[in-house]
């Protein structure tokens, strides 16, 4: 239980870091995640006992949350690097949206 609690505390720190996902925070979150991995490995090697389902499910929930924050953080970075512009540096036009406006107009 102590290992699981420590792993969850680590996940909480990861989530807090990913809410402000600077490059430094992203790197720090990777270190925290590595720590959580070690704790869960240790927990597994001790043999999980019945009665810990709720804690493990809570940990999985935190993982899903961290995963979603991580995906969005990256999608945001990738998006702002390309938003609205073509590869040649020209302003890209959202033709789909404009054609819909033309139909409505």
């Amino acid at each position, binding site marked *: 239980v102590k290992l699981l609690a420590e792993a969850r505390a680590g996940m909480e720190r990861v989530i807090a870091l990913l809410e402000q996902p600077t490059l430094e925070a992203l790197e720090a979150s990777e270190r925290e*995640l590595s720590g959580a991995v070690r704790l*869960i490995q240790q927990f597994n090697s001790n043999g999980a006992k019945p009665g810990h389902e709720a804690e*493990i499910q809570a940990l999985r929930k935190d993982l899903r949350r961290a995963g979603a924050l991580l995906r969005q953080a990256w999608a945001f970075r990738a998006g702002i690097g390309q*938003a609205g512009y073509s590869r040649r540096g020209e302003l890209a036009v*959202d033709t789909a*949206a404009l054609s819909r*406006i033309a139909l409505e107009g």
Partner: protein
Amino acid sequence: MPGITDALISSANHLRGLERSMSVIQSNVANASTPGYARREIVGVESPSNGETVRDISSRDEYAEHAVRRQISSFGRFDQLYSMLRLAESGFGVGEGAAIPSGLDNLFNAFTALAANPNDARMRQVVLDRAAQLARGFNGAARTLSETAGESRRQVTAAVESINRLAAEIRDFNIKQRELPGASAPDSGLYATLEQLSGFVDIQMIRQNDGTLTVLLGGQTPLVTGDRAFPISANVTAGTAATVHDAGGADITALARGGRLGGALEAVNQFLPRYQAGLDQLAQGVADAVNTALAAGVDTAGNPGAALFTYQLPNAAATLSFTGIGAAQLAAASPAAPGGNANALALAALQVAPAINGLTLAGFYGTLAAGAGRDVAEARDSRDLQTQLVAQARAQRSELSGVSLDEEAIRLVEYQRAYQAAAKMVSVLDELTQVALNMIR
């Protein structure tokens, strides 16, 4: 000498604008082939008092605004859905004293007691009382669902009214923009309006060349274009699916997926009808099973057993009621052995017999209640996650405003590396927790 002063200020502004323009252009030229580099554009803004000024903007800012609005829209959807499902769930109690499961237990316990004393008038009366109590339990649950549906419909109407009000505010901005270009450039107030609008429905915003904003609902239906707003409307007639219509009357319900409107529509059109159908199926199942068993027996006078329950389709749960038969009319005996307890035993045995979809009556109720509980928990988890995603998107947006775009483009590669490392760790951790769960199961 106001004339000369004005001219000097105007020239100074013009020069500053030119310098800025050159800087932006140099940056664009230098980075034109840099992968991921977002070109900055130059926008000239006419200002009657200060001459022409130039500011550079990037669509990165719009992307950040869009990312925030998208997350707010999802938050609104799950927050609304959670509120509605939580209300509905209150009609599906599972704990001790919950009306339907305890009502079922009480009724079948009364049948068991009747089997022990088939001709005891008090035992017979207890069965009738328990039947009436169970019927009231179903009526109460159906009423809770009906009230939740009514509240969801009110939320649909309220969301539509808010959307129309906010769209009108954006239209007013557009009108000012056309009358005096640049005088009312998008400010924090307008962005706050757009964020509010996103909370109610999924929107896309396009800035037109004349500075006005076009706002589309669900990427297709115009809410605002230029100096015109297109009010949407809702049809929330009870008993039918709630629908949303554009200004021309076309059904756009399928487009209204996000925001509070999307959440309320999901609740009233998908979740609540499913719960209602399950509850009706159970009420009908209980009534039919008990009435069929009673019809196979005889009462104290040797007459065929009378029905204990009555209901009207399609609203079996809401209309389920005790028929009002007398204690003597209860068919506890089989026709072969009048005065005996054979039929009371058959009635008691219904408690453990598969009745609906291979489940006992109580088992079927359990799946219904568990499903509703799961839906509420998922909606709550999604809402909580969205709270964090909104906070994250807002944090990223504010971070962006003070960041050099060139540096940002370069750092993208570093971000990718860090992202991949963290994503790998999440994946490993997920596998490890699955292993831990499998050990327990």
